[in-house]
């Protein structure tokens, strides 16, 4: 292990130097500095993270003592190690992608390179911070940097909205952490963690509510997620993959950190809350993603959906933990972490694709795309991989983690409380519906952009992006594939993060001992039968256990849920190859003649005559009209009262959260402000009465105390 100084110097010094050089340099040199120092910092983070995950215990690195605040320090434990790895895996390709796709003109207009490198450093700082002071400072730096990125666009609203909501969240988090700190008598995380057992139930509830609300803002959980689609759309495309892949996680990091370490794990309440909020967030997220026309907005809503899924799995884990089902808890937590990892990876890939589409086709509107696969075959392939991953299709990574999530939700049958079971059923149903809609959503996203014929001039003139950008996309796509085919490599590592908290090894739970022939706990005959499932055969064919298995029930009647992604992949390849071979052989002597498509005999089939993305989503719109509640107004124009010349339809869809929470809140605030405004009538005697009233109230309170 290289020593800490070198590593920290590489991360923070690298980012700082990179930012400096990128500001000074221009053109290609700037790109090289940006990508190079970004990668250097990321690789250092990767090393630090791997060290953290595989170390036996947490490592504390005291830094210095700030006057009036106390000592500040870094710490690398399993959880922060895991998040460092995720951030690094995202940052390496994302930084190269950003450097490769930022045009000189754009770089001149907004200092993307320095901002992104400082952002990377601040993300590392948030993860490494081991006390309240440093954590809040890092958190604020990160928020401001994202605000600056979001303000680079033509509109200021997204940035302000994000900052306003974000600050509310930070305030809530700060209050919660200070409450914990005052209870522990110290602001260091170590002390807070140590004193967690002694927290009163009320304090746990208050702290949970504040942290969940506050971190939920960054994670995109309802109700405070309305800033996210707007900000994601406003942030420049080159840097968006990194922002989407790394910063959303920090909200989840906060939630996990506070619930796994700061708060006692004996209460079911927080878990239930997270389970339900997560499930509702997921469903609402995917519904709005399915009808979105803007590709980036679609991906933003899908990020909300995935944050919801992760929170659901995490909440399930916390419930299992509070109920004492350690193995189940470990599995659910592994599912949450694995989905978090996967989501970061494929969302980075998809935002790279969206950025490339925006750059090449000069539009983000799916309605205006179409037929791009012919012009951008490679981008198309990688976006397809991303879409398959996010739709949970084997052999890609989304499949594994969503399968694990749903399987762990199904384990609620082990719980004894009927109420909890019902909560799980509701959440499970929402997650299943979400998974189904996700397929619709991304079939639409891919088909409407890449398939068919171009529906606009811009799309017809699109061209493939540069090789550097393509190769980063290729790398991320490969990660999606690897994580999807051999999850059995990743799961033991995640288990290291989870096991200390859950008090049980998820790995062991996932791959039960009776798959080992040397075990003598079970009759040989029984294990021999299970050999055919392939747990052991895998050892010869693929250098890993090829199967993810879950089991429950007693030793005599084990119920096994198994899923083997490597074999699934092998079978997929074999079957497809066989199919191709059979078709080839069967049609060897046939002449294939290709004819133009049948279009009903119209003289020329025009792009206007093909389905648009809006049209494709219309069934979902109609089906969930109760949620979308669109306001439709038609205006019909006629000449001389009867020549129908145009029908204009305006369709206003106010987001559910805006409609139910934000707008009433804004209205109430305005009403209160109006009342206060009335009081400011400028008459001296009225003010004297106010002063008198205030004095009386003050005195009354003082007397009561």
């Amino acid at each position, binding site marked *: 292990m290289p020593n800490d100084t070198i590593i920290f110097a590489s991360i923070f010094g690298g980012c700082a130097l990179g930012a400096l050089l990128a500001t000074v340099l221009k053109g290609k040199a700037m790109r090289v500095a940006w990508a190079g120092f970004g990668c250097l910092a990321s690789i250092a983070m990767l090393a630090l993270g791997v060290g953290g995950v595989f170390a036996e215990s947490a490592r504390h690195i005291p830094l210095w003592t700030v006057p009036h605040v106390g000592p500040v320090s870094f710490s690398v434990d399993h959880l922060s190690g895991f998040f460092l790895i995720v951030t690094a895996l995202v940052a390496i390709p994302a930084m190269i992608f950003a450097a490769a796709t930022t045009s000189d003109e754009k770089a001149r207009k907004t200092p993307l390179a320095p901002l992104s490198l400082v952002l990377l450093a601040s993300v590392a700082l948030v993860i490494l911070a081991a006390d309240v002071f440093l954590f809040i400072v890092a958190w604020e730096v990160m928020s401001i940097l994202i605000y600056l990125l979001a303000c680079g666009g033509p509109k200021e609203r997204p940035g302000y909205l994000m900052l306003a909501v974000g600050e509310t969240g930070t305030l809530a988090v700060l209050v919660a952490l200070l409450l914990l700190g005052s209870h522990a008598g110290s602001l260091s995380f170590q002390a807070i963690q140590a004193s967690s057992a002694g927290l009163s139930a009320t304090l746990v509830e208050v702290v949970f509510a504040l942290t969940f609300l506050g971190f939920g803002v960054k994670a995109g959980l309802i109700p405070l997620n309305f800033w996210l689609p707007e900000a994601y759309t406003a942030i420049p495309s080159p840097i968006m993959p990194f922002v989407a892949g790394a910063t959303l996680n920090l909200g989840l990091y906060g939630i996990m950190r506070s619930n796994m370490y700061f708060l006692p794990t004996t209460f079911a309440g927080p878990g239930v809350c997270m389970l339900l909020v997560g499930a509702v967030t997921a469903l609402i997220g995917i519904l709005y993603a399915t009808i979105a*026309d803007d590709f980036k907005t679609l991906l933003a809503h899908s990020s909300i959906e995935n944050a919801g899924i992760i929170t659901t799995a995490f909440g399930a884990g916390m419930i299992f933990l509070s109920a004492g089902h350690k193995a189940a808890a470990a599995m659910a937590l592994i599912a949450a972490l694995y989905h978090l990892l996967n989501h970061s990876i494929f969302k980075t890939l998809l935002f790279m694709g969206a950025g490339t589409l925006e750059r090449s086709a000069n539009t983000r509107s799916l*309605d205006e795309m179409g037929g791009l696969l012919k012009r951008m075959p490679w981008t198309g392939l990688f976006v397809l991989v991303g879409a398959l991953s996010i739709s949970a299709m084997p052999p890609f990574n989304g499949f594994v983690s969503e399968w694990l999530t749903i399987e762990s939700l199904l384990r609620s049958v082990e719980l004894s409380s009927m109420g909890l079971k019902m909560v799980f059923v509701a959440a499970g149903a929402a997650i299943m519906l979400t998974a189904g809609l996700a397929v619709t959503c991304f079939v639409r996203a891919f088909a409407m952009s890449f398939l068919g014929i171009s529906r606009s001039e811009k799309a017809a003139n699109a061209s493939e992006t540069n090789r550097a950008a393509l190769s980063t996309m290729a790398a991320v796509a490969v990660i999606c594939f690897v994580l999807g085919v051999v999850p059995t490599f990743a799961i033991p590592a995640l288990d290291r993060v989870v096991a200390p908290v859950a008090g049980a090894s998820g790995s062991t739970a996932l791959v039960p001992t009776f798959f080992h022939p040397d075990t003598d706990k079970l009759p040989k005959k029984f294990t021999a039968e299970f050999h055919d499932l392939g747990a052991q055969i895998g050892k010869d064919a693929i250098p890993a256990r090829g199967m993810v298995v879950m089991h429950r029930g007693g030793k005599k009647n084990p119920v096994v849920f198994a899923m083997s992604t490597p074999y699934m992949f092998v079978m997929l390849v074999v079957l497809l190859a066989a199919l191709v071979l059979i078709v080839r052989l069967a049609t060897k002597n046939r002449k294939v003649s290709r004819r133009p498509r049948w*279009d*009903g*005999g*119209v*003289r*020329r*089939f*025009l792009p*206007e*005559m*093909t*389905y*648009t*993305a*809006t*049209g*494709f*989503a*219309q*069934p979902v719109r*109609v089906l969930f009209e109760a949620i979308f509640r669109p306001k439709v107004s*038609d205006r019909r124009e006629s*000449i*001389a009262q*009867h*020549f*129908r*010349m*145009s*029908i*204009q*339809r305006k*369709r206003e869809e106010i987001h559910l959260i805006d409609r139910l929470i934000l707008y009433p809140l804004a209205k109430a605030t305005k009403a209160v402000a109006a009342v206060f405004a009335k009081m400011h009538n400028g008459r001296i005697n009225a003010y004297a009465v106010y002063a008198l009233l205030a004095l009386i109230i003050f005195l009354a309170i003082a007397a009561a105390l």
Partner: protein
Amino acid sequence: MSDDMMEQIKKLCPKTRVKTDKRSGDVEFLCDRASTPRVCQCLAEDHDFQFAGLVVEERKEWELNYIFSGVTPNGRAVVKTKAPLDDREFESVSVLVHAADWHEREAEDLFGLVFKGHPRLGDFILHDDVWQEGVEPMRRAFKPETALSSREPRDGWRPRKIVDVPGGFIMPIGPVFSGDAESVHFQLETIGEEVMYAFPRLFFKYRGVEKIVEGRSAEDALLLVERFAGTTAFSHALAFSMAVERLAKADIPERAKFLRVFLAELERFRSHLSTINAICASTGLAVGASQTAILEEKALRISGALTGHRYLFGLAALGGLTRDFDKIALHTALDGVADVLDEAGRVENLLVNTSSFLDRLEEVGAIERDQAVLHGLVGPVARASGYLRDLRETQPYAAYDKCGFKSVGEVEGDGYARLRVLFREIERSVEMMKRVVAELPDGPCYSPVSFAKGAAFAGVETPRGAAWHWVRMDKNGKIERCRLATPSFTNWHGFHLAAENFAFQDFPIILATFGLSVAENDR
């Protein structure tokens, strides 16, 4: 014609010259170009005249005849306006009388006339994406040998699109679609699921019948007139014959008049059964479709057995009919028709008790009465909307006045109302046929017609509504100009009224309940 109307028109256009035909009672108002629209509006809005057609003639001058049909037996009026041949600009009448819309578009396409104020000219009969600009086929100078349309559509041509909604698109249907549909192209403007507006792009089947008959004898023209719309051949042949007979001031034998009623009603009976069959099929009611198909085939066989032709081709003659029928044959046919009607009654009884069938018809494709009036809709479609116009009643021709015909209608204007009108009308048709057989006078059924120079027109209530045929003959007894204003042309114009904001799966049903013919429209 009432006096206050004359006064009103005199006020609108003081220079109007009024000419009344003594024999038929038709009135012609010769107006200047500027006041023509106002005069037309006065007829249509204040005096309950229905626009029937526009006849453009290229003679020594441009002559435009806007034909109107009123509610009295002699209630036909023509508003005529003239302009020198080198001046092709006219005031658009359709701005004030909307029913003239398509007629003016047709005149623009085929003659190159310009109608000032008409907002939508071009791409109508001659498709703009392939047709050569400036070639006007109905003009005298037109040479058929000139290359007319290219096979490759013009680049940059875009279909008309009126719906402006983000993500909206056109769902194209046809021209070759469905199993055995006539060739017509529909543009369904939609955002998915719901169709916001649908309009037909017609005239894929335009054969230029009106041009082909020019320079032919009336007898030869009759062949084409009864074959351009085969499913209503007799009615059109009758309208054409009547126009020529009116021009020749010929008297038709009484027996021929009665037999013409019989044949016209037989045709209506069969055509309505065919429409009912199409409605059943469009709703996916298989047994109902089969049962009504049996009835249609029976009606066809009765026609074939009686007249020698299943579609009544070759029966109408200028001056009567080409053949007579003996009493036994007529009675046999009548018995057959009565049997079919009984069967149809039983089928109707089943249909109105099939809720799945009614659900798909009720409130589908509804047209309000005032819209029907505005678009001058005709036939069962108009009568189902409460617009009770039937030439057999208002301007009885042949022997309808002696048969005591009364029209039937409904008020809802939806698909179900149209279906009921069809059923009531086939009952009336059989009643008429019975009256004819009971009161058929003896005598010849044909008397030769001597041709005369000039122009005349006649209207006939075909199964789909009022058709107006205009004929001008030259001194050699050849046709100089023939205009076929058909009910399908009129009703296709109003089709979009029934096709706004509907679910996609209702489209075939709306189409079927209209019972339109593309061939009759395209000519």
